[in-house]
């Protein structure tokens, strides 16, 4: 087990293994999203309160879930990189940030488009759920800006890792914001005592979407980490050999 982990954590091995892994993530991801989109839009019944507007949940919840999971992945990788000095871990953290920012943007945008017809507003300043999710977006931006500002990769790794770890406090705040404070946003539907508060005909497409988005996120992340590893190892012999052999272009 540890031998395998060590092997995977070595940049050249990761670079090759990841190339094959991408399609193993992308394929099931696309299938699940295909099913989830079809079933969510055309099979699931309309909601008793929100009618068809509730179908936005099929993109909003996976995006919001991944915006937080991505941050946790970034913070944990950064922590591992900081403590065990594993280069690949820092590369993963650096590769997560732009993806996390896009998913956070998607969660905010779809939430806003959902809020207009249902709540009666695109955005409400001061709402704890909305505000903490916006803070998440700024944390991603801050992380990327900090990396850009520091020329030395190893210094950038360490400084940004500290920021990633500090910012991790925001993730539980996002999740519990609707329970700790009053908010326009309703409480959790899936992660709650007594199980999900949702008809199964609505629930299964949603679970498929969440799983599918997670797979797609994995595929996107692998692709980004490969580029990051290649850049970080640009002066290494294995990269030189790889380029001269003409392989590894994909």
């Amino acid at each position, binding site marked *: 087990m540890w031998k395998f982990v060590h092997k995977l954590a070595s940049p050249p091995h990761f670079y090759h293994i990841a190339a094959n892994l991408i399609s193993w993530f992308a394929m099931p991801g696309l299938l699940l999203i295909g099913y989830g989109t079809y079933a969510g839009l055309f099979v699931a*019944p*309309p*909601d*008793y*309160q*929100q009618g068809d507007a*509730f179908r936005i*949940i099929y993109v909003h919840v996976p995006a919001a879930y991944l915006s937080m999971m991505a941050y946790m992945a970034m913070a944990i990788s950064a*922590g591992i990189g*900081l*403590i*065990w*000095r594993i280069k690949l871990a820092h590369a993963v953290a650096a590769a997560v940030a732009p993806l996390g920012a896009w998913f956070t943007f998607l969660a905010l945008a779809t939430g806003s488009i959902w809020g207009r*017809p*249902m*709540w*009666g*507003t695109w955005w*409400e300043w*001061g*709402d*704890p759920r909305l505000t903490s999710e916006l803070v998440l977006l700024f944390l991603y931006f801050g992380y990327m800006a900090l990396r850009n500002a520091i020329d030395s990769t190893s210094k950038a790794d360490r400084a940004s890792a*500290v920021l990633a*770890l*500090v910012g*991790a*406090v925001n993730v539980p*705040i996002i999740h519990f914001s609707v329970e*700790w*404070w*009053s*908010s*326009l946003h*309703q*409480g*959790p*539907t899936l992660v*709650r005592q007594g199980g999900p*508060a*949702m*008809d199964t*005909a*609505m629930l299964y497409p949603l679970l498929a979407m969440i799983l599918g988005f997670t797979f797609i996120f994995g595929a996107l992340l692998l692709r980004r980490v490969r580029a990051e590893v290649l850049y970080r190892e640009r002066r290494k012999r294995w990269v030189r050999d790889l380029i001269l052999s003409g392989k590894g272009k994909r």
Partner: protein
Amino acid sequence: MTPRRQRMLAVGLALGGIAIAAVLTLRALDDNMMFFIDVSDVVAGEYPADRNFRVGGLVVDGSVEREPGSLELRFRVTDLRCELPVRYTGVLPDLFREGQGVVAHGRMAGEGEFVADTILAKHDENYMAPEVAESLAEHVTEQTAGLRQGSGECNPQ
């Protein structure tokens, strides 16, 4: 202690410190973090007198009165303990209906009436088909039957 252990300890201590600081800050900010004020607190006079604020609650069944020929309406909101009369003129969100959660933005006028300039609708975390909701409706009616007896005063449960 190995350098790795030292780093682990440093990261752990830093995280713990940040978590504690965050909890303390959030506790101190607690009242300011509230997006809206409960009806009971407003009825008890615990609201900012000099500025607009938001009050949140359920629209009392049968309390909505529309002014014929205008967009003005009056209704009462409740947090199941107290009730507050609200006056509003304008367009309502699609989800606004009796028994629904709403957040009203505005200020207290005289005679204990809240004059709203914005009404937002809340929905709950339950998702179900209309047919399922109908079969549950009887049960829900029983639950909220007490709300109709409210008279604008507080009746703690």
